[in-house]
């Protein structure tokens, strides 16, 4: 029974070593004692220091536009609204004139309203996966708190619109793939405009 307490002391030794590893002077001490050292500091002081996120980090969707905000990629097909698991996307559109004919900007229909409720969104990325036009992408901004429970949490179209350059900046790999895909699509559509993909609601109707 002479060894009772050995396990506890061993554990304490480990705790002490880990404690020392979190301080520069402690690491110095361990180095003097000839022990192997690893940097024990694993946390960051959040509001002052921010963790570097991976490129794929996703938090909240945004709408992509090319060049000017009027030239948004969304054609108001409402697939994302339909597929969103928590139903946080609300789209009104496509925009129509008095006769009920769809209005077009740059040959595409566009939504009148496009709202996403931050408080409901669960960052699952399904809207991005299902979008046939690559119009919606995931942002990595995560500090979205507001002072109001309703209006501040409801992101409207104006707030959601971000440029393709921004997308290229935050997610270079993914944006590169999307750009390639869109360029291939445009090259396919341009030789004969009548042969546009059938699911494209922007296809011109004579």
């Amino acid at each position, binding site marked *: 029974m002479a060894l009772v307490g050995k396990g506890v002391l061993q554990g304490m030794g480990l705790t002490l070593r880990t404690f020392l590893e979190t301080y520069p002077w402690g690491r110095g001490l361990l180095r003097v004692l000839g022990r192997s050292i690893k940097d024990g500091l694993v946390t960051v002081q959040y509001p002052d220091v921010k963790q570097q996120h991976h490129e*794929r*980090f996703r938090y909240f969707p945004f709408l992509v536009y090319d060049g000017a905000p009027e030239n948004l990629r969304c054609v108001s097909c409402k697939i994302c609204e339909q597929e969103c*698991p928590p139903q946080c996307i609300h789209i009104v559109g496509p925009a129509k004139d008095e006769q009920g004919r769809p209005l077009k900007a740059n040959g595409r229909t566009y939504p009148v309203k496009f709202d996403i409720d931050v408080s409901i969104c*669960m960052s699952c*990325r*399904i809207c991005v*996966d299902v979008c046939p036009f690559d119009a919606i992408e*995931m942002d990595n901004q995560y500090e979205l708190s507001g002072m109001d429970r309703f209006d501040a949490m409801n992101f409207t179209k104006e707030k959601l619109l971000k440029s393709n350059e921004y997308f290229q900046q935050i997610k270079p790999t993914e944006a590169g793939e999307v750009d390639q895909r869109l360029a291939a699509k445009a090259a396919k559509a341009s030789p004969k405009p009548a042969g546009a993909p059938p699911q494209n609601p922007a296809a011109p109707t004579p």
Partner: protein
Amino acid sequence: MEAMNSTTASAQTQLLEVSLGPQHPSTHGVFRMNATLDGETIVKLKPVLGYLHRNHEQIGESITYIASFPFTDRLDYFCAMSNNLGLALAIEKLGGIPVSERGEYLRVIMAELTRLVNHTAITGFLLNDMGAFGTPLLYAFREREKILDLFEAASGSRMMCNYIRPGGVRQDVPPGWLEQVRQLVDGYPTFLDEFEQLLTENEIVKQRTQHVGVLPKELATNASVTGPLLRACGVNYDVRKVDGYSIYPRFAFKVPLGTIGDVYDRYYLRILEMRESVKILQQALKEINTASPSISPKGQAMVKAPRTFRPPKGEAYGRIEAPKGELGFFLVSDGTPQPYRYHIRSPSFVNLTVLEDMCLGQKVADAIIILGSIDIVLGEVDR
């Protein structure tokens, strides 16, 4: 005994009812135990569930099969990846979807990393319940965070991964990711040695956990308990071996077993299981390079158009050995894009049924660590 009766006859003792929870730091969520105490000994214990009920199954019946994936992340929020895998297996069975080789390897890697995450964290929590406040838990979380970082790099989210899809995975892993996993996996036994140095031979841990909350083998099998809780009693039942789903039969690994099924056995079994997971991961990382690089045999079909997926009429049950036990998804299809019936057999919920039997005759402080050793997550219990 006679003498005791004579003294208590005049003292008029009565049983005391204590409500542990639903807001209690040791209940791992919103769970309530109505314990009836005789002094400090538990004579009756009634679990009260349902505080975190979110209607998951009913929601699953009104949305497409693919749209259920983000909800499965939130079942057992420690093991999002293996929950995804369970549902993916059920859907693949239902729709007869083939899975790509690389997808299979990535799934196994993800599922085993999830096991490391869960077992590491739960060991920390168990010690937290015992009163070793902070130290083991934070050591565990330090390691867990490294794996969650890898999950973020692959799927975009630390915990709510939503990564595995029928037929494979959603996206391939980024370049260099497998190398990072290899480094982490090779370093993991060192951490486990350290962790064991802290806990396994610790006399206080032994005193608190040995012969506490013993679960008899017969009761465990009759109550259909699964996972580490069952194997700690000495019953050799592991769905990875029994069912051989995915590509598990290709890997050489052992199923560790406990002897008497007390809290200490359950703790130690989890450590041993982590060592076996490391072995599986090392084999999978070695073999993945030989698989074809495609992540899904049909491209991204299952990702892009969820509504076109209409499985034939019928039913399927997909099950996996989740870190907590057998996780099963039961799906009934009526030929529409939504399942007709969507049921989850969650290990936490089934394992919780033996709580009272383990707690009877124990002290009230032991009830806390017995609950901790079952390893429940309330998101999965209440669904």
